[in-house]
């Protein structure tokens, strides 16, 4: 994990101390805002250079960023669409071409798809590509819809390369980010440093627990049948806990490090496992992603504006793409579809089942604990699809319900 690497610890200590020292040199350095912005940008470039694999790693993001900025600054619809297409093509090329090609080639018997294709198609996508492509697409679509474009290329670079969120989000919105960069406080914001430090400490604690759970699950998932039924359910609970702590811990640290520089980035988790239905779960889980999916896939597809059938179809497409975004694998697509189905059922059963649906709805309203349990169960079983290939996930599900 990059935030826990010794290089990053030294890096952030130096950058943060330099940043906090700038206001102390008020009499000698003006304007401080430019120096602070410059420091953040240089730090982000250094971060990406070191963690992203040097020039080869940073070039794709620089080129795509330049294209996005260039298309956005025209504020013309056709150029914005061209920019979106370039972003999507880049993401698909780096992240999904090998996977899709392997899936196709594997249909030809006798061919070793992996070894043939890995010599011609990139096997490692650029660092954070899933995140910065989504941020670029959001930027272009919002500009196309009438929001003002980012005028200065350095501000766009800061938005695109901001190192705390580069690797694993949260997915920023430029309308909230850029004004903060423009108005960086001239003083050391003690409250920001304190709050940031607390978030980093909380994130660190979560990561420590998550890493332990990862070791535990790495062993027991291969020996799931050795466990008693009770301990299999405990392992399932650990799976849910582990991904939450891992991901939210990382988000906590990202939010904390951003706060050290006086920048607020969106919250990404809000106690998702207390949700009482799938819709609420996705309003609490990876909030920045689910908002992005809603705003840039679900609503453009038509949302709920064209009847129940189309609404369900749009949700299924959106969630399947959401699943695929997490990883280049059919199990991820299946996981996304699984949540799409869950959302479709929980959002539409009342209308679809008529009187019976109304009755069920009324009953469930009186039993929030039951709603919570069903939702949690549904989400936990979904994690089997997320983490394991379908045959293994199916086998584990069978073992959970006591099948031998």
């Amino acid at each position, binding site marked *: 994990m990059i935030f826990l*690497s010794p290089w990053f610890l*030294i890096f952030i200590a130096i950058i943060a101390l330099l940043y906090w020292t700038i206001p102390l040199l008020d009499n000698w350095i003006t304007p401080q805002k430019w120096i602070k912005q410059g420091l953040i940008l240089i730090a982000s470039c250094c971060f990406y250079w070191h963690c992203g694999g040097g020039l080869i790693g940073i070039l794709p993001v620089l080129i795509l960023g330049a294209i996005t900025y260039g298309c956005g600054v025209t504020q013309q619809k056709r150029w914005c669409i061209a920019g979106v297409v370039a972003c999507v093509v880049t993401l698909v090329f780096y992240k999904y071409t090998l996977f899709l090609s392997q899936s196709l080639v594997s249909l030809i018997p006798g061919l070793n798809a992996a070894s043939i294709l890995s010599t011609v198609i990139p096997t490692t996508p650029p660092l954070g590509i899933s995140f910065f492509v989504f941020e670029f697409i959001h930027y272009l679509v919002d500009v196309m819809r009438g929001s003002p474009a980012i005028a200065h290329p350095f501000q766009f670079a800061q938005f695109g390369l901001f190192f705390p969120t580069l690797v694993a989000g949260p997915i920023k919105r430029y309308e909230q980010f850029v004004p903060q960069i423009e108005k960086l406080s001239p003083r050391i914001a003690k*409250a920001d440093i304190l709050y940031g430090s*607390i978030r980093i400490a909380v994130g660190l604690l979560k990561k420590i627990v998550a890493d*332990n759970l990862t070791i535990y699950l790495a*062993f027991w998932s291969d020996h799931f049948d050795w466990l008693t039924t009770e301990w299999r359910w405990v392992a399932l609970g650990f799976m849910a806990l582990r991904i939450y702590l891992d991901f939210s811990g990382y988000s906590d640290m990202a939010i904390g490090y951003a706060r050290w520089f006086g920048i*607020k980035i969106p919250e990404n988790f809000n106690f998702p496992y207390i949700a009482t239905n799938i819709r609420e779960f996705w309003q609490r889980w990876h909030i920045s992603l689910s908002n992005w999916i809603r705003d840039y896939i679900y609503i453009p597809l038509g949302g709920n504006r064209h009847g129940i059938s189309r609404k369900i179809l749009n949700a299924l497409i959106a969630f399947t793409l959401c699943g695929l975004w997490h990883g280049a694998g059919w199990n991820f697509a299946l996981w996304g579809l699984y949540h799409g189905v869950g959302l479709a059922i929980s959002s539409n059963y009342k209308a679809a089942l008529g009187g019976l649906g109304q009755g069920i709805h009324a009953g469930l309203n009186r039993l929030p604990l039951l709603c919570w349990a069903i939702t949690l169960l549904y989400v936990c079983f979904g994690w089997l699809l997320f983490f394991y290939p379908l045959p293994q996930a199916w086998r584990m599900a069978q073992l959970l319900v006591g099948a031998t």
Partner: protein
Amino acid sequence: MKEVPPLYRWLLDRLNFKAFVVGFIAVLIVLSITGRVVAHHNFYSHFQRFHLFIEAQTLFYPTASQLREIVKSKIQHQKNGKIAVIIGGNSVFIGVGQSEKELWTNKLQKLLGKKYKVVNLAFRGGGIQESGAIAAQALIKEGYKKLIYIANTSPGNIGNPEGWSVYNYFYWDALDKGLLKPYPARAKYIREHPYGPTTEDLKLRMWLDSLFYANDLWTTIGYRWVFTVWNAILINDLPHSTWYQWLVPRRLYPDIDFSQPVPLKARYPASEEKRVIELIDNYCHPMFQLEDGLWTPKTDFWDDFNQKVVVTLPDNLKRRSLIVVMDISPHYVKQLDSLKERCWNRNANTTVRTFRRHGYHSTKAGFNFAPEDYLDHVHLVSSGGEKLAAHLAPQIRAIAQELGYVKSNQKEPKT
């Protein structure tokens, strides 16, 4: 402060910035000082060897300082007292195949007598340049010069001067904490032959640790009070383990290695035959080529080997070292055709000669052992350990005399 979740709002309302900063720095300083203090004490009670539960396989990583302190406590911190016989090397020398009571180093201790103190610092997968060698160098730097270092290797095998991938952290740990005397030749070789990209991360980590001594503090806490990293071996290898076993301090874990004897039939399964024969083949072909029915050394390989032998240990440790080139079990040797057997023997002899040429003491061992002396193709059981101890004891005494630790007219202890 807007946009702060309620839980954090509650905390922020009660925290003072100055108090937080002062507290953070104070805690950092206190923990670092504590780490430095514990690095100079030996906390390994009744230490015999680094058994399974106090080594890397169970995510427990002893530090270079701790290795040094173990030896110092065994020789009661007396620089001119007992002769420390520090054992390094890999699973063969740690005594895989022997229970704690049968350990070959205990037998060696009995043979050598009270003037010597044998300390087993070998690790599974360890190299001659790791663990024991690091401890020996640290002790020499502190003025503990009455020591002999013994480690095992296989023919033609030495590894990089800083060590193999699991335990090379000992070298960087010791280097950054100033436990090693400068050895420019080794440093130059390591600079010019970096082990891999992960070494840079390791070097940074060890440098940071040399400032804060976090590893020393953490392993002390983990050994004495509580350990918080789960590990599957704790479940599988410990009978009657509980769900909270992983929290138990490591000092409470027994040395369960091979507490039950393995029957002879089970030691040489048919499924292993092909793999071991291929292993022996792999020892030969990178190193020797067949010309007119004779095995001749490949220049590239042995030039590199020579270079590594020169730089791996500093001269003041080389002359105190005995590198033991171990044979494999005769159960497998007799299955080799005469050509491969000659290659294997040639390899062992060349390895010994190369070490000797560069100032080490070196010997072969195991070449006259029986199949019953082995647990598998390389590891020894109790009888093999006894033979190993008997083979090495006189050589250790000879080295001690040569180095002036003992007078040449002193009698050998009765066994």
